[in-house]
């Protein structure tokens, strides 16, 4: 039975459980809600949860585990000669899975009877074409070993599916019966539902955390793989970045880190003063009407996709800067793509981050502070400079660091605005590139995925991850440490 129908059946059972559980509780309370421990709906939810949770838990685990088991069993059953010299077990197994898929598709479309699909006398010569006709293209003719493995793969999968359906249905029914038997007037259904909700929330939180761990682990393993192929010292201290896909690349991260750092620095130099001053204006000077219009407008900037900023850099800011600093002007700039172009545009992108966060933080400074200062005869700007900003400083620093980690992670603006040349230079009008832009170009090439030229992307990603993580941790630490100062 397909998983979809199985899930639907379990859901239907849960819905029935809700209704009957509620009704049973009501009747056991003599029809009077006040005789029940909990509101009737809680009894219904209790039954529904008892149906859903175990059944779906079993289903999820089964769906995750079954392919692994089947794979192991089938690949263990492959004869010695099935894995040829120039290939690997993984590739053969993916062939097996594709043939199995093709047989499934053929049976589903009616081009093959189920018996024929499982029979050993199936005609091998026409098989490739017949599978191609139902949309599964194969790279070569199907060998008997592979067909055999595919058939046993199908068989095991079908058996697994059957047992899964059975177990899941049994679990759902078992849960139903168990919950119905517990449903009496004095049963504390409300507390059971409460712990069910708690588990749901916990589950959501752990999925987020587990995903993060998974991402980090995949980065770590690929990074380790990279360092096996390429010396770590050359990676971290190399001054040249010149990957060549034929081998013999120099993969020094320093030019990329420098480019990242330089562009982020220019971006922050643009975003921090403008953003901060805008925040001060909005929170301290602007009237309620101006604020109601200006703040959302400023935040619209944050909603523009970065690729649009990239276009803006490429088509507007680059040529503009070139007109001033290029050959016709000061002669410092060769082309529109430069650190300056990307930095300025990225700074514009970051303004709403800095201003929005700073605005909230400045507003959180108690009015009593300002009153105290005004009461001593200070002007607005004196009050802001000497009382409000020092009180809000930890938060503002936190906001700036968050903006910095965004700047470091930004890609599209760099790709379009700063060029692709990895270079160590002090001239902000040179083209440079950043870590993120190079990760993209290393992974989108034709390189073999096991080569250092492709794996370096993971090492770059890991480095970037650690840098931004460090910045975020620092930002949180600063914000927490100094937060209570004025409370």
């Amino acid at each position: 039975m397909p998983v979809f129908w199985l899930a639907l059946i379990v859901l239907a059972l849960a819905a029935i459980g809700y209704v009957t559980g509620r009704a049973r509780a009501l009747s056991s309370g003599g029809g009077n809600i006040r005789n029940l421990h909990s509101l009737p709906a809680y009894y219904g939810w209790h039954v529904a949860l008892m149906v859903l949770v175990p059944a779906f838990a079993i289903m999820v685990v089964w769906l995750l585990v079954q392919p692994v088991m089947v794979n192991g069993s089938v690949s263990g059953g492959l004869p010695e000669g099935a894995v040829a010299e120039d290939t690997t077990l993984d590739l053969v197994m993916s062939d097996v899975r594709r043939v199995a898929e093709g047989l499934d598709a053929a049976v589903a479309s009616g081009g093959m009877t189920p018996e024929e699909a499982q029979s050993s006398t199936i005609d091998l010569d026409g098989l490739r074409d017949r599978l191609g006709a139902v949309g599964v293209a194969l790279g070569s003719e199907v060998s008997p070993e592979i067909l055999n493995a595919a058939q046993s793969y199908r068989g095991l999968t079908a058996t697994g599916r059957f047992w899964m359906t059975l177990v899941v249905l049994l679990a759902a029914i078992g849960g139903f019966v168990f919950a119905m038997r517990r449903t009496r007037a004095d049963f504390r259904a409300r507390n059971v539902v409460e712990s069910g909700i708690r588990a749901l929330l916990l589950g959501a939180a752990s999925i987020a955390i587990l995903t993060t761990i998974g991402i980090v682990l995949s980065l770590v393993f690929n990074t380790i793989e990279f360092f096996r192929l390429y010396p770590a010292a050359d990676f971290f201290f190399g001054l040249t970045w010149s990957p060549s896909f034929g081998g013999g690349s120099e993969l020094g991260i320093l030019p990329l880190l420098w480019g990242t750092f330089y562009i982020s620095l220019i971006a922050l130099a643009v975003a921090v003063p403008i953003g901060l001053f805008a925040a001060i204006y909005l929170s301290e000077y602007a009237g309620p009407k101006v604020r109601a219009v200006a703040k959302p407008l400023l935040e619209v900037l944050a909603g523009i996709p970065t690729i649009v900023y990239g276009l803006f850099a490429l088509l507007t800011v680059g040529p503009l800067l070139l007109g001033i600093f290029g050959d016709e002007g000061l002669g410092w700039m060769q082309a529109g793509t430069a650190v300056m172009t990307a930095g300025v545009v990225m700074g514009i992108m970051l303004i709403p981050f800095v201003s929005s966060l700073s605005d909230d933080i400045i507003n959180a400074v108690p009015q009593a502070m300002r009153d105290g200062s005004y009461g001593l005869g200070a002007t607005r700007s004196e009050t802001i400079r000497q009382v409000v900003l020092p009180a809000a400083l930890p938060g503002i620093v936190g906001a700036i660091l968050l903006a910095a980690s965004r700047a470091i992670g930004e890609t599209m603006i760099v790709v379009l605005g700063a060029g692709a040349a990895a270079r160590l230079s002090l001239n902000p009008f040179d083209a440079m590139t950043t870590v993120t832009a190079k990760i993209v170009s290393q992974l989108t090439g034709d390189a073999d995925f096991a080569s250092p030229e492709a794996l370096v992307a993971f090492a770059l990603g890991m480095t970037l991850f650690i840098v931004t993580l460090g910045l975020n941790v620092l930002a949180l630490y600063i914000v927490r440490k100094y937060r209570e100062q004025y409370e």
Partner: protein
Amino acid sequence: MYDAVNTEQSVQQTETKISARNVQVYYGDTHAIKDVDVDIADKTVTAFIGPSGCGKSTFLRCLNRMNDTIDICRVEGRIELDGEDIYDPKVDPVQLRAKVGMVFQKPNPFPKSIYDNIAYGPRIHGMARNKAELDEIVERALRRGAIWDEVKDRLDAPGTGLSGGQQQRLCIARAVATEPEVLLMDEPCSALDPIATAQVEELIDELRQNYSVVIVTHSMQQAARVSQKTAFFHLGNLVEFGDTSQIFTNPEDPRTESYITGRIG
């Protein structure tokens, strides 16, 4: 009960420092202060008493134009400081507030060191030519705030680390440091324990030698103890204004009597 009303009550008639005539205050559509006329004498402690929401704090904040910082607040009428209208467009509210200092209900030290808290006003107004002079001003202010002995060894410590009573005395010292002519106090003891309250009250009595002090208070005993003049506000009206001894022993208006004997409030 009012035995603190002692010989100090016999105030010599001094000149009027602040005179308010026909003052109206509106918060949006709410008429918060109605037709208030009051004369605040120099070198005298004037107490504003009245139930919560009667407008005494609002009126106090009119005297140094602190209400300007509230967008929806509108003040009408005439308030004169030394004969000059403080709501005249020519008057700079910032200058005015340097002359009419304010201490707030909740201690609000700045997140700076104790020294910088006190030096804040003098620095803004350029009252010291050099560090030595500033040190002197800070020490004098802290002494007058009756907190010098407690903090002299830790002037670099943050002002926010002091206890509530110390913080309030620090705020008073901060207000005193700018050498104001009038000191407005908005329930300065409401967040303090009795011992700290007694210290602050003692301080107020000393400040009377040099300043005109206006204090808003919810404590009738406190008003009786520290003030020479008392104004009773009710529902935005100034009901009665006169010598403290008179208000507390022989009020003219029945509402005043009801309030001070605890029947309304």
